[in-house]
Structure formats: structure tokens, C-alpha cells
């Protein structure tokens, strides 16, 4: 797994979480600009999925395919689902949902690296 790319994903998603958390503190709902922020994270995830696919095809990991792609898929669907769910709520709780989802993406990145064998 490309470590710099993983660092980028974690940095972006933690930044999004912090942004949303700031909105929680200020008692505001998710705004459209934050969804664009989510799209940036999602873009990085798509790039990572493609890179992982190429590397895995070249035998870059002995991780079980199903397990690996399960994590990749889960990480890809979390933000869009959470963003849609959060955006329909117009209270601070929408920001809590977005912040939580962004943290889940960061956590899944950690698990993904474990599954890939980066830490082994």
C-alpha cells in the first residue's frame, strides 16, 4: 500500500472531521462546502482504490481479496451515505454525523493498512 497516499487520506478525513466538529461546537448544520470537502476525501479514496487494485494485481500483497475489497468498498460508501443522511438534518446533529463518518473513514484506513500488511 502506498503510505503517502494513506497519510493523505487520513489527513484529509481528519481535517473534514475537525471542520464538522467545529460546526458542532458552533451549533450549525452541515453546509454545502463541507460536502465538497467530503468529495475531495472521496476522490482520494477512489485514487487509492485504483492504486490498490493495480498493486494487488501485480502481487503486491498477500491479503485475502474479499477481505481487502470489503474494506475498500466500505470505506468508499461511508461518506456518501453519511453526507446524504447528515445533510437532510438541519440541526447540529448533522455535523456530528459528518464528523463521525469522517473519523470512521480514517479508522478504516488504519484497518486497511493492517489487512494489506503494511505493519506486518
Amino acid at each position, binding site marked *: 500500500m502506498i503510505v503517502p497516499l494513506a497519510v493523505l487520506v487520513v489527513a484529509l478525513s481528519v481535517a473534514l472531521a475537525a471542520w464538522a466538529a467545529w460546526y458542532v461546537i458552533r*451549533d450549525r448544520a452541515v453546509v454545502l462546502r463541507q460536502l465538497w470537502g467530503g468529495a475531495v476525501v472521496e476522490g482520494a479514496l477512489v485514487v487509492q482504490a485504483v492504486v490498490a487494485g493495480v498493486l494487488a494485481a501485480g502481487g503486491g500483497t498477500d491479503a485475502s481479496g474479499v477481505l481487502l475489497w470489503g474494506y475498500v468498498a466500505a470505506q468508499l460508501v461511508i461518506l456518501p451515505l453519511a453526507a446524504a443522511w447528515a445533510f437532510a*438534518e438541519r*440541526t447540529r*446533529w448533522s455535523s*456530528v*454525523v459528518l464528523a463521525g*463518518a469522517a473519523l470512521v473513514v480514517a479508522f478504516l484506513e488504519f484497518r486497511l493498512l493492517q489487512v494489506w500488511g503494511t505493519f506486518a
Partner: protein
Amino acid sequence: MTDPTAPAAPDPTPARGTSAATATGPGRLLVAVYGVLAIAATARGLYQVATKLDEAPLAYVLSLFAGIVYVVATIALAKGWRTLAWVAVGIELVGVLTVGTLSVADVGEFPDQTVWSGYGQGYGYVPLVLPFLGLWWLWHTGRAGRTAQEPTAADL
């Protein structure tokens, strides 16, 4: 804080089934957490059942069952299907307490690879806390529905 009642609440009397008394405000977060757990547990259960069912059939079928219960709870809470939500969240509570206790006490060949093992230890004990929050939230929103939804301090 300044606006405790959700302005977008579609119906002023959400007592029976009308969308989302259980899915607004804090319920928004509750459903989201349920959703994440539903994905995590179902994916794990499917993976275990599909790849290594013969290693520990009981544990892996239980794992998948737990995932399905979370999916049902998520949908029921999101849609405001109160009865179904009560049942699903109730099953979860029984499940996490039973499997948790059996796995800690190490009775027989009991699974140590489900969401509910060790009281949900592998998931930051979220599976243990969640059913209590879920039941409280169902009770709370049910009561609010019956008393014409007075905005109270408890709305936060």
C-alpha cells in the same frame, strides 16, 4: 441549542409511524452509528460465512445474524417503525449480554469472533452501549409523541 425542535420536522404529531421522530435530532446520530455497525457486522459475517464457515459454524452464523439485526434496527429507526425497532434493539441487548457473558466466561466452544463477543470489546464496546441508547431513545421519542411533542431540555 437555540433551536431544539427540528424545523424540518415533517409532521407535528410523529407518534405513530410517521417518518422520522426516531431519526431526527440526536436520532440522526443514533441511526448513523447503527448504520456503520450494520455495515461492519454484516460485512464481517458474510465474509466469515463465505470463507470459513466450517471452522466455527455457530460463531459465524451468529456473526451474520448480529449484522442482520443491526441492518433491521438501522432501517426501523430511520423509518420510524417503532415496533420493529423495539424488537431489533431488544434482540441486540439480549444478544450482546448473552454472547458477551458466555464469551467472557468461556463456556464451551463459544465464539470469540463476533461483534458481540467480550461485550463488543473489538468495537470499542459500542455494541454494548448502543442498545441501551436505542431503547432509551425509543422510549423518549414515544413519550414525546404522546405529550404533543413539547420541546424539553431533554431534546439535547
